């Protein structure tokens, strides 16, 4: 008969944060790969020239993309405000910051949807540009949706009074994910909406 005592439950410290960092690294690698394919195709097919690369009559709405970038910068600040408040057990400010983050996240998704509707670009067009554009922006849209779901959960936890301790760790992980999303979007914005 085995009579050894059961092992004590392992104590986790910053496991969630480190795990999130690895997930973020995967996310970054995914977008780096997509953008690399996009730029390579732009050179192979369009000869590196925006005019020959973009399908005819397609206008990329740059002001909308710039608004999206600024909204992202604001949301990145907001999520850090939430972490700051959480560390100081300030439940009210944490709830406000998380609520604002959810609103800004929704605004980002709305801006992306509006860009798609303004461009009126069919998914399966005559050139590979259409597919690549939707691949990059659509994948990023999904990444923001994931962040928004985490933010909604965090907002409810803050409203329910879960502040300090492990909850801080969860918020730090969310903040890390959101900052990485912002960094990735800077890259996506420059390639898809500025360089095109």
């Amino acid at each position: 008969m085995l009579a050894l005592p059961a092992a004590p439950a392992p104590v986790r410290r910053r496991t969630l944060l480190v795990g999130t960092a690895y997930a973020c690294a995967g996310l970054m690698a995914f977008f780096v790969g997509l953008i690399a394919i996009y730029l390579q195709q732009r050179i192979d097919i369009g000869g590196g020239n925006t005019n020959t690369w973009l399908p005819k009559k397609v206008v990329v709405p740059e002001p909308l993309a710039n608004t999206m970038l600024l909204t992202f910068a604001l949301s990145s600040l907001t999520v850090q405000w939430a972490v700051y408040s959480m560390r100081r057990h300030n439940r009210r400010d944490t709830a406000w910051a998380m609520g604002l983050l959810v609103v800004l996240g929704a605004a980002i998704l709305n801006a992306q949807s509006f860009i798609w509707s303004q461009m009126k670009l069919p998914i399966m067009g005559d050139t590979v540009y259409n597919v690549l554009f939707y691949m990059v922006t659509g994948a990023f849209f999904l990444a923001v949706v994931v962040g928004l779901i985490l933010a909604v959960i965090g907002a409810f936890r803050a409203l329910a009074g879960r502040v300090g301790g492990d909850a801080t760790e969860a918020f730090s992980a969310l903040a890390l994910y959101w900052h990485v999303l912002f960094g990735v979007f800077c890259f996506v914005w420059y390639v898809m909406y500025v360089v095109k």
Partner: protein
Amino acid sequence: MFPTSSKLFFGASFVAAVVAVVHGLVSGDVAGIIVLSGVAIIAAFLGGVGAWSRDGQAAIPSGGVSAVPSAAAVSSSIWPMVGGIAAAITAVGLVVDQRIFGFGLVMLGATGAEWMLQSWSDRASADPAFNAQLRGRLGHPFEFPVLGAVIAGSIIFAFSRVMVALKEMEATIVFSVVGLVILLAAVLVAMRPRMSGRGISALAGLGAVVLAAGAIAAINVGEAEHEHKEHTELIGNKSVANKANTIATVKYHEGKITFLHDDAEFEDLEVPRATASNLLLRNDSDETVLFVFESVKVETDAEGNTKLVPAHVESDPVGPGKAKVLTVNIPKAGTYKLKIEPIEGGDAHEREVVVQ
């Protein structure tokens, strides 16, 4: 100063950055530069997170957390890394090849099972040796046969690639030498029964690396031409093997279309009827063009009657200095048109192609 993971990732970041610079200077390949730079940035990011969180051991900065008890010892695990690789293979396979995608899924499933098994055994008792024994008792009956089959299959595949890449005489020499080396290695192991497991592992590892390198090189070289192999005919003979080959190269340069085979120009391009035939389209002009093949295809109406209708097969846009393959399959013999249309407008050029 820096915890272990930071040293690893900062080192990897530095190496990737150097490789990106060298790759950029040597090849100028944009995708490669971006990917390698991305690897450098991502590794630096992970190194930064590792340093900041002290490999995840730093206390959570939350207004006066009490002292945290030391963590229970858990065995080191390769499954997170293998799982990451499996996920990457699955994602790449989704785009590149269904077989790679399937392999990735199988790898993901196996990783999940192994990870759960290790996680379960780590919590079985406070004695790591007993936990490892318990894990082995449950896992080894499944792992060893599968691992053996995978290794045997890999060896067979690698040897087959090397064999097909060599000519008859070369194959005889190479495999005589390989057989001799394996024999000598076996004699060495047999004469030194006290040879450590680590030494044998190193020997086997070295052999695996050499075999893998040989297989990769052989795949790059391709199949060797043997004396009994017939000279490739210009016109495909409708065999399955010929479907994979290009029957001719269509070159577009300074408004002129030329037909080439083995770099020799010829006048009339003849394509076999009712056979999938590949044409290599080479754009040597300084504009992006489409290659368009105007022909016919079989269409079946609602009552099941078939008729021939005009068909329009076109390539993806082909950039300056680039090449693409266009597959055509014409059901009816005749003379058809191969057109070159510049994407930005301008005069189209055409030549006749005979289908027989």
